[in-house]
């Protein structure tokens, strides 16, 4: 069982976390966003082999954060809280 570092609580078992999606999948605002761009945002995932940047939520405290980890070795490289950086 992997250990993930919650920025708020520290290292916890992976069973306490839920995957939230690719990090950096910036939401395009507006009713006139090109449909391909919107479809990419909704459905296109990178699924990288190696280093991945992902959003996770620590369900026990509610913290959403960005975690960098290696999908092959399962090494966790970094984690940082979200700070509303995608504010419109």
């Amino acid at each position, binding site marked *: *069982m*992997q*250990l993930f570092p919650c920025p708020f609580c520290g290292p916890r078992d*992976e069973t306490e976390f839920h995957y*939230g999606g690719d990090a950096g999948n910036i*939401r*395009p*605002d*507006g*009713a006139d*966003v090109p*449909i391909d761009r*919107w479809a990419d*945002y*909704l459905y296109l995932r990178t699924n990288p082999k190696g280093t991945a940047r992902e*959003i996770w*939520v620590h*369900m026990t405290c*509610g*913290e*959403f954060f960005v975690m960098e980890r290696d999908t092959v070795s*399962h090494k966790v490289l970094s984690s940082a*809280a*979200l*700070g*509303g*950086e*995608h*504010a*419109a």
Partner: protein
Amino acid sequence: MTASRLATGGSAIDRSHPIRFSFDGATVHGFAGDTIASALLAGDVAVVGRSFKYHRPRGIWGAGVEEPNALVDIGGLRATPNTRATTEPARDGLVARSVNATPSALADRNAFLDRFARFIPAAFYYKTFMWPEWHRFEPRIRAMAGLGKVDADWASPGTADQVNHHCDVLVVGAGPAGLAAARLAADAGLSVTLVDDQQNPGGSLGHRAGEIDGKPAAAWIAETVAALASAGHLILPSTTAFGIYDHNLVGLNQRHFDGRPDTLWRVRPRRIVLATGAIERPLPFANNDLPGILSADAALAYLRRHAVLVGRRIVVATNNDSAYETAGALAEAGAEVRLVDLRRDGTPNAPANVRLIKGRALASASGKLRVDGVTLDDGTKLDADCVLISGGWTPTIHLFGQAKGKLAWSEARAAFLPGDPVDGIAVVGAAAGAVSLSEVFAGAGTAVASLGQTKAALPPRSTGPEATGGITAAWPLPGSKGRIWIDYQNDVTVKDVELAARENFVSVEHLKRYTTLGMATDQGKTSNLPGLALMAGITGRTVPEVGTTTYRPPFTPVPLASFAGARVGELMAPVRRLPLENVHRSSGAVFQEYGGWLRPAHYGGNADSERSIADEARRARQSVALFDGSTLGKIEVIGLQAAAFVDFLYYNTMSTLKPGRCRYGFMLSENGVVFDDGVLVRLDEQRFVVSCSSSHVAAVHARLEEWRQDRFGHGAVYIHNATSDMATLTVSGPNARKLLEMLELGLSLDDADLPHMAIGHGIYAGDEVRIARVSFTGDRSYEISIRADRAEPLWAQLRQAGQTFDAVVIGLEALMILRAEKGFIVIGKDTDGTTLPHDLGVDGPRTKRQTEFVGRRSLFTEEASRDNRMQLVGLTVPQGEAPLPTGAHGIKRIDGRLRSQGFVTSSYQSPTLGRPVALGLIERGAARHGETIDIQHLGKISKATITAPCAFNPAGDRLHA
């Protein structure tokens, strides 16, 4: 008698505590400290089980976890199928049964199968029973094959404990290497946990010679354990480290022998030291599976630990030095010993009173239910009542392999050893290929030094005679004569491996699946290496070229109850409970689970529930109904940007809502689908309450948090889920206001002061109450929210006052009828994963809103604009007909074929209207009111007419009545 208990000796047994247990119905005598296997051997029970496939008689092979043959089903408190007799302590009153044998291992009814063995090689069943269909044959074949039986009626005496544990160093194995490493780590100031699968620490030192720091091995073991224990380190005997998982989490299976279920330990050590030892391999010769043929090391263990002499006329066959100590000890104990070493040169000297035959190997063994002699490869026959085998040692590197450690082949040791180191894991002792105690201790010293501690003590010194590791590999060879067993547990012979090779199953993973080599409870602990070495020989490859199968947990079987722990029965998925549950129970409420909540379905007990529900729904319309709506979501959204936040989260514009007012709206997913509906309350400029669906509270809360943290920032908005803080009691019906006026709530209930979709604040018995005029019934309704722990007196007084008006208490089923009469939807019931807001007739925000909201762009796709979308409608049936079945499809014919055009989502008999009401999602439904369509259910077709969703009081004046 051939095997027997000696009059003296036995380090593990306590002769002052005799015990009795039963095996296959016969009484077996033993002493405290015996295993089931040692007691069976002491009683000269040779046949202890039948083989998986051919029902061959099988005896005890080993003395530990590697045991492939001696599996027993044990009953009673610790009832477990397929328990290894070699690791299970013998206990008074224990009932053990051999596996795969009827009526007993000795007189097995299916023993005849072995005579047909030549016709049933590997994959026989796959190939033979394909026509007409495997499943016709499967039950009988399964009944003949297999191992232990699970007792389906057996219930665990309690839930299994699960323990989370942390330490600096976890040492797996308390043999010489593990004890030395644990002591060194402890002396360096690290916290140590030491686990061992045996009841007593010591490992091989429990039966092999050794002198350490000038002391006998037993004294050094006792001293080391005492030092660790007194310094507060944790020592767990009878505990197997069965798996290493991601980030070096280690799973331990701790066994108790007092009736308690096994304990599961989840250990997070900083470092792991694997001192897991090695397992002795068999040698290949014909009939090498006969009872009375044992591992040589096991015989030495039984002799020195349990004072059991396994035979009187013994042949020891070996290819390595380790059997010499065994042969000498057995001769000293009074047995006639012939030691057959296939090596001509470089062997140690023959021990005293042992006849050494060099340069010879066993060709075959003879005997029916037990071995009675052997033939050497030069034709020499030796009679024997017991044959001991030492084919070399396989390091126990399973855990290292599970941790993705790469293995390195050692020609000198004829074994795979740990290769490149894995982060945080050190392998020491025989598991790392060490043979002599000096090598073992040096390795332990290096491993502990590598933990990075500066304060390192010196490892212990071996001061006695040292073991030597000379070996000449003796793998099974292709083309060998006779039936030579590779895998005892799965009845895999040399011929089966050859067959697999002929049919091109040459990869080890294919070999394993095709022949079952290395499967089942022992997972090939004695058979894997000989099997893949044979495959190497057949295919002209080296052993490392063939490689090993993947090591996976568990190392030994772990009861499923251990993994379940306390998460059984009601605790598997605990329901959420109402604060007033007991009050409702005493009022005759019948409870059901709705979306994770245990709620009253209806009142009036279990008898004639349909009538109770109908009565509740009818009386609610006549006067006034009381309903416990405490499960309704109450998530507060507070802060400077609260209004902008709810605008973004809701489909409807919410920032225009005035303080003190409520608005109904949808939340969408980013794909535009309606995710939740409910009322939003604006308490003041910067404070809202999201009243989401009862079963959706957690999901809505998570969604609010996600958008808050991602898009708005921590300081802009705060979110608090107050759902469980407050109880919500609903008063609904024409007399709702009159009833409420009988309570002193300290606020005006005038419609001018508290109109529909407004909130008011009152006081009840000193506590603030929030009263919201929102309605899920279509009648005038008040939802009163109060601190959950103060709700009971308010509920009691509502019921008291209700007597004046013939008030009725209603459960969720009646509420479902009331809301369906009004055409009010339940998300997930009347909508599905494709329903967009305009499918429900709410198109305003889509066409008018200029500001951004979740799901917006998805409402303008080709799919969202399709003109034949399924839309919410009401459905009425011809007079006198029964309600439509929920889920029934509206159908139409296209080119003569039936095609669905939507389906019924909710359907009830309305007691007020005296006819069925139904909601559905029907293609183009909104434009087809008045049209009659065919409805199909289970092949029967009936009629229904499409209407507006609202069937009761479409004018809506009852809201204000």
